[in-house]
């Protein structure tokens, strides 16, 4: 293969690969990519056949002029002045022209720059996990290209003319180089200074952005949640930092609605913002309501295209990691927490969970003033759609007693008297709740919850229709829970006493989202989700706070190891319980004190790996199988009577070996010859001689054994 052909082929393949993620990121259209790919494939074919003619310099200039009108149209019309897309088109065009006109050495580097720009645009706008494969593939090919270019340049300069170009095998080096680059880039990525909050450039098809999430809508039809129950995309992930309080239930509140009309739930607050602005308190927390925290959960909310932060219904406080610029959040009458702006990417926050007082978990009391207790409003008793039939049914089901007793009877009535189905999704009806209660007697969670709200209001009990997520899928790989869109759910919150709101879920258990799952497919899904989570968590949203946390973890790990080495148990300063973790929220809880904790185990594992590496290195660097060693071993095989004195010459040893075992004479003589050469002629053995030595020694040993 000629050198020019090899260079063209390498550049062609790299150019073909570079812009592949761009259409996924909505930077260019699929059409543009198809045209580019076709042109590059044509170039690759010509390069493969090694035939010209290639474009002249004048032709390239003419083509550049021809493209100018397209560029202006691109800038002004097609993309409304956005710069990246027309620039990408321009570079792709220039790259194709340059590839076809590549004749001088500098043209090659021009093309390399254009390819790199496309790669940068593709990588910089990609957020999906799969871009890591693209990065690896591109880096591998780019490294190979640079290696070959450097080799060809050296060979052209230094190799003698008129001879075949020397072969420079680089396969092994490429494997090493890729492993090296990947391993070194990880700490570099982790410790490069972060001056700004992580920014995710372009949401697109590959970004994992959900199109609609439970609780983010102002108006909610009765079919919305039922429709997204098949959506497996991740809404949020959470991790319990300690044992949750007794009675903990993974029920995340994301939206509440009080007005029901024409089969649509809406919020009366839309007509006048009644949200409470909760500032960060002096102790650093956002107090969502009165109460003390028994444990904490860390939540990673996916970019869901809204401002609502789903929080567990038992949440009493909230906290954001160190470095997050957040001074206040909004809490509405139903306790739904929202931000004042849409978070740019995965948003991390912690919530303190209240629990029954019987829990023996340490209690975290908060300083500062919590927002006032939620009181029912007129909207919570809005009986617009409460028909006489519903009122009559409610009266029958509720019976007599306190509000909570009546509410529970209504809940039980729906739980036991009605069936769950998704078959009625989208079935039109004038009053679908009434049709659910009296005609179909089957339905999905929104119908159950809507029916209960109306029945409670018919009984004069303030109630709201609440949406959010119920249940989660446990991922054992990193002990976190995944809440998907399919966990979307609707339930009821009612004020059963003055300011005391309670959750009621009238949906039958068969209709509630699964709490857990099993199976091989699910396990693979968990692995994939783990990778996606890691990617989101430690790549896309990795920021300054994570770097600080990482340093704390190293410090704690070092402290634990030092304490263990002192053999006086875990050091007190590294012991951290849930209370301390709440006090220092930016660092992960209790990493140091427990020698069996994952962090310490990881530290031990790292040390073990390091030790193995050192031992392996020393083993590799050990003195080789020398002729002296082979000679000594052979001499030791001689019978005691024939064993020579230390001063006996090596050639005598060879002679005695030949007398003792004639069949090993030749092999022994070879070993002795190489021994003399190595030890007395000051001639280090070459690789071939070492191989000869090993073969002779093995032959001598084998024949001696056979003879014995």
């Amino acid at each position: 293969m000629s050198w020019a052909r090899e260079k063209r082929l390498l550049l062609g393949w790299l150019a073909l690969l570079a812009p592949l993620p761009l259409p996924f990121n909505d930077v260019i259209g699929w059409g543009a990519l198809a045209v580019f790919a076709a042109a590059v494939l044509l170039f690759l074919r010509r390069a493969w056949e090694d035939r010209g003619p290639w474009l002249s310099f004048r032709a390239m200039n003419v083509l550049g002029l021809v493209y100018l009108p397209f560029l202006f149209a691109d800038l002004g019309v097609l993309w409304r002045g956005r710069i990246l897309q027309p620039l990408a088109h321009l570079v792709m065009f220039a790259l194709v022209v340059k590839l076809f006109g590549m004749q001088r050495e500098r043209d090659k580097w021009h093309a390399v720059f254009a390819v790199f720009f496309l790669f940068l645009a593709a990588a910089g706008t990609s957020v999906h996990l799969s871009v890591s494969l693209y990065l690896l593939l591109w880096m591998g090919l780019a490294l190979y290209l640079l290696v070959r270019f450097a080799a060809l340049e050296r060979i052209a300069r230094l190799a003698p003319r008129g001879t075949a170009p020397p072969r420079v095998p680089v396969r092994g080096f490429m494997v090493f180089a890729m492993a090296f680059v990947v391993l070194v880039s990880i700490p570099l990525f982790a410790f490069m200074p972060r001056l700004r909050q992580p920014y995710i450039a372009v949401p697109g098809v590959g970004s994992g952005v959900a199109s609609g999430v439970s609780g983010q809508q102002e108006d909610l039809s009765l079919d919305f949640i039922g429709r997204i129950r098949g959506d497996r995309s991740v809404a949020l992930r959470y991790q319990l930092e300690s044992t949750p309080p007794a009675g903990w239930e993974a029920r995340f509140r994301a939206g509440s609605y009080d007005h029901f009309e024409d089969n649509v739930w809406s919020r009366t607050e839309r007509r006048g913002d009644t949200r409470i602005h909760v500032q960060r308190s002096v102790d650093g927390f956002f107090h969502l309501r009165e109460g003390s925290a028994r444990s904490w959960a860390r939540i990673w909310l996916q970019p869901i295209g809204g401002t609502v932060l789903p929080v567990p219904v038992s949440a009493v406080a909230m906290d954001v990691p160190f470095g997050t610029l957040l001074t206040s959040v909004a809490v509405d009458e139903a306790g739904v927490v929202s931000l004042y702006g849409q978070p740019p990417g995965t948003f991390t926050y912690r919530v303190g969970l209240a629990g029954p007082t019987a829990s023996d978990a340490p209690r975290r009391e908060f300083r500062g003033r919590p927002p006032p207790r939620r009181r029912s409003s007129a909207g919570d008793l809005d009986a617009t759609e409460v028909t006489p039939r519903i009122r009559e049914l409610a009266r029958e089901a509720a019976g007599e007693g306190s509000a909570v007793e009546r509410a529970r009877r209504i809940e039980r009535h729906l739980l036991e008297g009605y069936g769950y189905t998704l078959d009625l999704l989208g079935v039109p009806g004038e009053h679908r709740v009434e049709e659910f209660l009296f005609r179909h007697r089957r339905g999905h969670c929104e119908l159950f919850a809507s029916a209960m709200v109306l029945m409670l209001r018919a009984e004069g009990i303030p109630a709201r229709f609440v949406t959010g997520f119920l249940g989660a899928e446990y991922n054992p790989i990193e002990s976190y829970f995944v809440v998907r869109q399919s966990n979307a759910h609707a339930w009821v919150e009612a004020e059963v006493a003055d300011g005391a709101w309670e959750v009621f879920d009238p949906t039958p258990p068969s209709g509630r989202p699964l709490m857990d799952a099993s199976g091989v497919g699910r396990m693979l899904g968990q692995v994939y989700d783990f990778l996606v989570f890691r990617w989101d968590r430690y790549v896309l949203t990795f920021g300054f706070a994570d770097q600080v946390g990482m340093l704390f973890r190293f410090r704690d790990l070092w402290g634990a190891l030092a304490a263990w080495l002192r053999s006086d148990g875990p050091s007190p300063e590294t012991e951290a319980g849930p209370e301390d973790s709440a006090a220092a929220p930016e660092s992960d809880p209790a990493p140091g004190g427990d020698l069996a904790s994952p962090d310490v185990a990881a530290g031990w594992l790292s040390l073990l790996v390091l030790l193995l590496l050192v031992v392996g290195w020393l083993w590799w660097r050990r003195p080789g199988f020398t002729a002296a060693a082979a000679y000594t071993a052979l001499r030791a095989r001689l019978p005691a009577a024939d064993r020579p004195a230390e001063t006996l010459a090596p050639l005598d040893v060879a002679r005695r070996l030949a007398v003792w075992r004639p069949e090993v004479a030749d092999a022994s003589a070879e070993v002795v010859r190489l021994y003399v050469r190595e030890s007395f002629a000051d001639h280090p053995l070459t690789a071939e001689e070492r191989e000869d030595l090993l073969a002779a020694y093995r032959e001598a040993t084998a024949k001696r054994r056979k003879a014995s």
Partner: protein
Amino acid sequence: MRRTIPEGIRLTTVGAWFIGVTLVVGVAAANTGNNALYLVESLLLATLVLSGVTSRRNVRGLRVEIEPPVEAYANQPFEIGFRVVNGDRLFARRLLALGLGTGPETLVPFLPAGGEHRGRLELLATRRGPFELPWAHLHSHFPLGLFRKGVRVRLDREMLVFPEIFPAARGAASQLGKAGERSSRRRGWGHELLALRRFQAGDDFRSIHWKQSARLGELIFMEREAELGRRLSIALDNAVGGLADRRQELRFERLVSEAATAAHDHLRRGYEVELVTRNGRVAFGTGPAHRLRILRELALLQPVPRQREPLVPVGDRRPRLRLAMDGGGIGA
């Protein structure tokens, strides 16, 4: 003792561009907070580290041995055999450029782990005399061509470069051809035939002319001319004092080369050659060993202070070649 001594690192044009691009991407990453750009930046930095570490390793752990030629003449290219050994059992070495500090470099394309490479390196010495080869210089652009890393390996070798040999027509020695071939017409043990006669008792059987013996039916003996006629005595007066300028230096060097050319040429033609200088005398002799003796003497010849008495060869040998700064020539 360290076998290799680093000779520093030099950034190539490609490397400068690479670092520039890395800086630009780094600024973009820091300015936007885009972790994807940070990822690209970390890969670029890791590639730089790879290039630095690998190129450094690529020129380390090497052993260089050279085999100077037996004869090397000034201003005439000669080849030196070399052997590069990779003492590293883990990593191969690639794309090494080997030079000896003068002359062109040669490429060692691939050295397997623990392997060796043999080759020849062309050199040119511009002066006669000791030619020092203290170091072998190795450098490499491997792997990515971003850096040029170099080391030098101690050789501590020295070879002797003989004086320049002129083409026969150029020097005064060319005039010696006829003079040296004049017949002495005396019996002796030379190479030229003097006469044929009948074989007598005591004659050397090796000198029987077998063709004539067969033709005449009796043993015919070849009498050879005495060797005196094929002797050359070269007198080079190196008592020239301090050489004032470059011109005089060149002139002295030319005289030395004339002497070397004459000796080289006549020895090749079978003459006995003697060299007389102020340093001493190399007696008449023939053969390759004698040629090397004369050339070695001439290679090391240095000017000495001027002396009154003239330089004369020992004995009365003809013809002579007298070479001196104040005019030399052919003696009769």
